[in-house]
C-alpha cells in the first residue's frame, strides 16, 4: 500500500513537471500598478498578463532592474521597499524595507550588488543581490552642518561602479563597489544647481545629470573622471520664459542615438538635441508639452516622447533622420511611461487613467493590443538586464 502510494506520487510528480508551462525569461516584463501597489508579470511577445503580485508596499514611484540571468526583478518602491521577485514562480523571493523614502536603484556590472538611492535618510545603500543582506551604507552628507541630501540619478557604470547625484548638495558621486562592504566614493562638487535625474550613455562613458535649478546638464566623462564635471548647454534659451513644471522629467539610458543626445528641456515644450562631439546644441524640437520621458527606439531611428500634466494624453514621435516630429498620438488619459520591445517593433504605453496598457506598432503607429492594468505607471522588460546604466 505504502509502496503503491509513493509510486503513484512520483508518477504524478513526473506528469506534473512535464505539464508545467515552461517559461523563458527573455519574453518577460513587469508592469507597475501604482495605486494598488501591485505588479503584473507580462509576456511581451504574446502580449499577455501572466500573473499579478501583491504586497509590495507603496509603488507610487517605482522602478525595476533585472538580475543578469533575467530570472529576478528587483522592485524599488517609494516607501523604501526592496523586493526581489521570482519571474518564473510568480512570487516574492525576498523583501526588505531598507529606508523611509526611496527613489530608485541599479544593479552592478557583475550582477552581484544592488544599489538603492534614498530620499530619507538621504544616501545610497548597497545590498547583496542574492540575499538582500546590507553590505554598506553611504549617507549623502554635505556642507558644513552635515545635512543629508536626496539622492537621484543612480546608475551602474563599467568597472563595478555606481554614479549618482545629490539634489540639494549639487554634487555627483562616483562610487567604486569593487569591495562592496567598503565602497570608495569620489565626490564632484558644485556641478550645477539641483541635479534631478541622470543618464549614462549606452557605452557607459558619459554620465549626464539634468539640472532643475539652472539651465543645462552636468557631464562627467567616466573614461577620464580626473577632468571633473563640465556644464553643458548652460546658456541656451536664457531669456525664454520659464514655465512651471508639473512633473519632473526623467532621463534614461537610451536617449543617446549615434552622435546625438536627446534631452527634455526643463519647463519648456521642447526636446534638445545635442552633438556629443562638442556638446553643442544642434536643434530645439518644438513639441506638444513638457517632455517627461524621451526614449529612443532600440535601433535609434525614432524617439518617442510623453508629456507632463496637462498634456499627458499625448505622445509624439520624432524621426531621427530629419529631427522632426512625424506623428502625434492620443493613446488615452495620462500616458506615464513607454517601453520598447527588445528590437523595437512595438512599444508599450502605460495609460494610467484609462487603466490599461496600449501596445503600438512603431512602423504603422497603429494600436495592436490592449491589456487591462490598474493605474499602470511603469513598464520594464527583461532585456534591460544586459544594458549598462539602466
Amino acid at each position, binding site marked *: 500500500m505504502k509502496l503503491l502510494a509513493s509510486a503513484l506520487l512520483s508518477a504524478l510528480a513526473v506528469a506534473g513537471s512535464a505539464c508545467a508551462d515552461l517559461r523563458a525569461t527573455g519574453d518577460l516584463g513587469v508592469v507597475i500598478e*501604482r*495605486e494598488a501597489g501591485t505588479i503584473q508579470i507580462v509576456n511581451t511577445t504574446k502580449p499577455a498578463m501572466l500573473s499579478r503580485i501583491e504586497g509590495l508596499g*507603496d509603488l*507610487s*514611484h517605482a522602478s525595476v532592474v533585472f538580475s543578469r540571468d533575467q530570472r529576478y526583478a528587483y522592485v524599488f518602491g*517609494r*516607501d523604501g521597499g526592496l523586493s526581489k521577485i521570482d519571474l518564473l514562480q510568480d512570487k516574492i523571493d525576498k523583501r526588505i524595507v531598507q529606508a523611509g*523614502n526611496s*527613489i530608485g536603484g541599479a544593479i552592478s556590472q557583475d550582477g552581484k550588488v544592488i544599489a538603492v538611492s534614498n*530620499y*530619507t535618510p538621504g544616501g545610497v545603500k548597497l545590498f547583496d543581490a542574492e540575499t538582500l543582506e546590507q553590505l554598506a551604507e553611504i549617507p549623502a552628507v554635505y556642507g558644513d552642518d552635515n545635512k543629508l541630501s*536626496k539622492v537621484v540619478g543612480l546608475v551602474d557604470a563599467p568597472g563595478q561602479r555606481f554614479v549618482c547625484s545629490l*539634489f540639494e548638495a549639487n554634487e555627483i558621486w562616483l562610487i567604486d563597489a569593487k569591495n562592496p562592504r567598503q565602497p570608495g566614493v569620489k565626490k564632484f562638487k558644485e556641478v550645477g544647481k539641483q541635479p*534631478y535625474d541622470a543618464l549614462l550613455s549606452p557605452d557607459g562613458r558619459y554620465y549626464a545629470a539634468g539640472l*532643475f535649478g539652472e539651465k543645462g546638464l552636468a557631464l562627467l566623462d567616466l573614461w577620464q573622471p580626473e577632468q571633473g564635471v563640465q556644464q553643458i548647454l548652460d546658456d541656451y534659451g536664457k531669456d525664454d520664459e520659464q514655465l*512651471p*513644471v*508639473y*512633473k*519632473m522629467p526623467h532621463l534614461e539610458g537610451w536617449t543617446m542615438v549615434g552622435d546625438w543626445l536627446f534631452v527634455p528641456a526643463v519647463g519648456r515644450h521642447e526636446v534638445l538635441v545635442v552633438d556629443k562631439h562638442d556638446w553643442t546644441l544642434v536643434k530645439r524640437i518644438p513639441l506638444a508639452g513638457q517632455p517627461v520621458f524621451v526614449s529612443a527606439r532600440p535601433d535609434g531611428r525614432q524617439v518617442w516622447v510623453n508629456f507632463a*500634466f*496637462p498634456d499627458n494624453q499625448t505622445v509624439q514621435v520624432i524621426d531621427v533622420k530629419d529631427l522632426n516630429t512625424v506623428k502625434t498620438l492620443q493613446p488615452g488619459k*495620462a500616458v506615464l511611461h513607454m517601453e520598447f520591445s527588445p528590437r523595437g517593433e512595438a512599444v508599450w504605453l502605460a495609460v*494610467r*487613467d484609462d487603466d490599461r496598457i496600449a501596445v503600438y506598432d512603431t512602423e504603422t503607429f497603429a494600436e495592436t493590443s490592449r491589456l487591462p492594468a490598474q*493605474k499602470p505607471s511603469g513598464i520594464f522588460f527583461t532585456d534591460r538586464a544586459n544594458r549598462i546604466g539602466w
Partner: protein
Amino acid sequence: MRIAWLLGAFCFGVYAEEPGAARQQELTNMLKHDCGSCHGLPPKGGLGPSLMPDALADKSDALLFDAIRNGRSGTAMPAWQPFLNDAEIRWMVTRLRQR
C-alpha cells in the same frame, strides 16, 4: 465638451462653491497621481514634503492654499492656479487634512 468645461470654470469662478461630485473625483485622482508624483501616494513625501495630516497640523490653511495656488518660486512646487479655482484649492486643503 469644451463649452461644458468653460461653463464649469465660469460657474466656479463666480460662485466659488464646493466642487460637484464628478469634479471631486477628478480632484481626488489629481491629488493621488499628479500631486503624488512629487509628494507620494499616500503623500508621505518625495521630492516635495509630506502632506499627511500630522505634517500639516501646525500650518495654516492660508499657507497651504497659497502654496498650491501660487507655487513656491525657486522650488519644484508649481502654481496650480491655471488648473484649479480657489474653491477647488480650498477643497483640496480640507481633503489633505482629513486623510
